[in-house]
């Protein structure tokens, strides 16, 4: 070490945060979900745009996700604390606007957690149970699958899963992180089993024969014709594939950036947020792409699209699930069992990440005293935010109810629209940071203050992200199959929740001013040095 590199340090205490780059990556992977997002490319992408390359869509979306991830990592690096997106936007743009956006995101995330939990009995369990029913000729499993997907089944199993998620979220953070880490490896193990089944199949004939064995003689050969008769138009088109990738990417990869919501707990946030988000994106891209390569070795893309099309658009019995494809090739209890354990466990992990990040957003509101501090109460023994987690569980139960009754919220389908609109506020804040708060920009970590020539990188990448977000809002309307058929009701719901958020902020500010003599606006005011 040369003399100029030396720093004289005297003996004193230190400061450390807790979540590592690996931990951030695990959170990101679970929020993307090795299970639910693992099914989408094969059951949905191929069927919404028959002919679109699955790997192409995964890759385009992943690359765009890298830009979005950088933007959110910069947000977390600029404000390394709970609810970094809200904190940054409130300080840079406007506190009321930032709270309104954060309010919508948190409330809807809570309800979406329920929607995702409802997906366990609604889709995941029936898929796995039907697989067992078909493979082992087990009528009980088939009946259970039918009941699981019914309104009663969704309500009963969904509520049980909400309670389970709620209970696990009351555990200390370190235990939760360990549960997630176990899930990460279980999820990868389930995929390893799928790879093994696909890779060891001798060739297309083996798949065709396995399919016909379990789905009926001649079934394999009839799928494309059936889909075409039902209206499927198979036309490879790179441009459409790219457009599809832009919006489907948000579905598949949503969640890689969530450690930004608890940036205050991520050590070396300026580095680990980006590493975590990019790693989560790249790992899931590798996992899903490898599965596609192995599957397309056995089945043509057109057939994958047809099976998905039949499932999504007709009453024909169809099983467009990668887990089923693997299971028919290796129809034994161990294969099906390992996949089922990995899938169900990681689906609970998915809900846990929503509970976790939403509770941290609520923390940031409580810390700014917008909501009563009791909501952010941390139990002294377990170190868990019991009130916030319970509130999120209530929201999640609403999501389960909505899914069980096929209600108006259709949370899963509308989440892209809600999430993307609310993201515009913090992304705009970090994009304009160099111009609105140059002091903060100059003092920020390198990931924030890096420049390309004279142009701040965060502005450049923020602009790309804004275009990406803008396209997804537009695409939500243009592609109802993916956007969820956004209608006037959805837009009004968004506006109503947003306006309630604004009203909460204004009411809280007035209350604190009159009763306590403090103005919440002071929290956000810049303090120039004397």
């Amino acid at each position, binding site marked *: 070490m040369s003399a*100029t590199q030396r*720093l*004289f340090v005297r003996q004193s205490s230190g400061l450390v945060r807790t979540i590592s780059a690996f931990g951030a990556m695990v959170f990101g992977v679970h929020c993307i979900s090795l299970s639910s997002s693992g099914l989408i490319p094969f059951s949905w992408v191929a069927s919404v745009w028959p002919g679109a390359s699955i790997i192409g869509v995964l890759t385009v979306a992943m690359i765009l996700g890298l830009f979005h991830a950088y933007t959110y990592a910069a947000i977390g690096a600029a404000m390394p604390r709970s609810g970094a997106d809200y904190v940054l936007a409130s300080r840079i743009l406007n506190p009321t606007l930032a709270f309104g956006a954060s309010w919508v995101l948190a409330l809807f995330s809570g309800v979406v957690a329920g929607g995702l939990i409802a997906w366990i009995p609604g889709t995941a369990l029936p898929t796995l149970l039907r697989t067992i029913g078909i493979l082992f000729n087990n009528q009980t499993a088939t009946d259970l699958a039918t009941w699981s997907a019914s309104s009663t089944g969704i309500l009963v199993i969904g509520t049980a899963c909400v309670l389970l998620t709620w209970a696990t979220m009351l555990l200390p953070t370190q235990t939760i992180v360990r549960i997630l880490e176990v899930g990460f490896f279980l999820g990868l193990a389930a995929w390893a089993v799928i790879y093994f089944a696909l890779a060891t199949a001798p060739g297309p004939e083996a798949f065709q024969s396995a399919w016909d064995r379990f789905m009926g003689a001649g079934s394999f050969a009839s799928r494309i014709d059936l889909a075409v008769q039902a209206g499927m138009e198979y036309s490879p088109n790179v441009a459409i594939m790219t457009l599809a990738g832009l919006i489907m990417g948000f579905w598949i990869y949503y969640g890689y950036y969530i450690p930004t919501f608890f940036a205050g707990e991520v050590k070396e946030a300026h580095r680990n947020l980006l590493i975590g988000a990019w790693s989560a994106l790249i790992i899931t891209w590798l996992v899903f792409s490898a599965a596609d390569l192995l599957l397309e070795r056995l089945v043509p893309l057109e057939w994958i699209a047809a099976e998905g099309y039949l499932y999504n658009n007709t009453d024909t019995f169809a099983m467009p699930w990668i887990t089923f494809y693997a299971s028919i090739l290796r129809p034994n209890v161990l294969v099906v069992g390992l996949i089922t354990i990995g899938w169900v466990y990681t689906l609970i992990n998915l809900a846990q990440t929503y509970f976790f990040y939403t509770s941290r957003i609520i923390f940031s509101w409580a810390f700014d005293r917008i909501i009563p501090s009791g909501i952010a109460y941390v139990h002294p023994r377990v170190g868990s935010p019991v009130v916030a987690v319970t509130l999120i569980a209530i929201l999640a139960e609403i999501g389960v109810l909505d899914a069980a009754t096929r209600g108006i919220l259709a949370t899963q389908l509308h989440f892209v629209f809600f999430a993307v609109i609310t993201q515009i506020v913090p992304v705009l804040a970090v994009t304009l940071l160099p111009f609105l708060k140059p002091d903060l920009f100059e003092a920020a970590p390198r990931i924030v203050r890096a420049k390309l020539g004279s142009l701040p990188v965060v502005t450049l990448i923020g602009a790309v992200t804004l275009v990406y977000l803008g396209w997804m809002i537009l695409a939500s309307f243009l592609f109802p199959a993916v956007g969820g058929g956004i209608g006037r009701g959805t837009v009004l719901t968004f506006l109503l929740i947003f306006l309630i958020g604004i009203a909460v902020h204004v009411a809280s500010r007035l209350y604190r001013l009159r009763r306590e003599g403090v103005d919440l606006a002071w929290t956000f005011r810049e*303090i120039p040095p004397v």
Partner: protein
Amino acid sequence: MKLFRIVYSSDFHASELVFRKFLSAGLMYEARALVVGGDLTGKALVPLIRVDGRYEAVIAGVRRAAETETELKQLRRLIANVGYYAQEMTADEAQYYAEHPAEQAQLFRRGIEEQLTRWIELAEQHLRPRGIPLYLIPGNDDPLFVDEILERCAGSVVNVDRRRIELAGGEYMLAGLGVSNETPWRCPRDWPEEQIDRELRGLLSGVREPARSILLVHVPPYDSGLDTAPALDQELRIRYAGGQVLMEPVGSRAVRRVIEEVQPLLGLHGHIHESPGFRKLGRTLCVNVGSEYAEGILRAAIINLERGKVKGYLPISG
């Protein structure tokens, strides 16, 4: 009685920018008193190496150079803002100081004395005309010689370490203790719990209305949610389990015991930068504002007192 507003902060660790923002916050929010919870001094000193008529330094891993007087001034300001001391020297001198800890300690002492003296003057300049007092205590990271500097304070800046003083014409009482319980780093003001207990009880003995007293103690109460920090092993390495950092309460049991028994109006604390918050221990509102001194961000709290009660409080940062 009318509203009495305190602006409280802690753990500046020599950040010039944060201290200046703190004074500014007191003026902006029309505080009746400013209070500082210790750890005033910095942890590191950056050698400004003279090389061929220019100065070079490495700050946070980034090599920076200054060729003109203006650039040198800017470099010094940058170093001061992140809480480091700067000292001009040659490469040979840097090598000498690296090999001679006693002389290196003298450099630190000079840097600390110069800065604290300047801060006191700055506070007097801005606060005295408005009649706003600044009450402070040292923290466990502050060397003992800091007492000599603080003892020289007169006028608006008041050292309340191991003292009681009256606020708002006697409506409230402020008692200060600038120490922490024993830390793995064996800092200059690490005390055994028994000593803290004894000192606090002595400070508060004879107080007529404990419910109107404010306890200014650097270390937060044990297991209050204001004292959560990484667990360390014997070699001061962070303890991990399952790949995660183990966190544990590290505050003072004596401080908690005394607060629970005496139930003062307020407990003002610092020390654990990563554990800011407001917590109630019985009737006592305990505050740790945390610290982001290295980022040049002031973390503080506005606390309104009225009729012997906490009327309202708000964390601020900027």
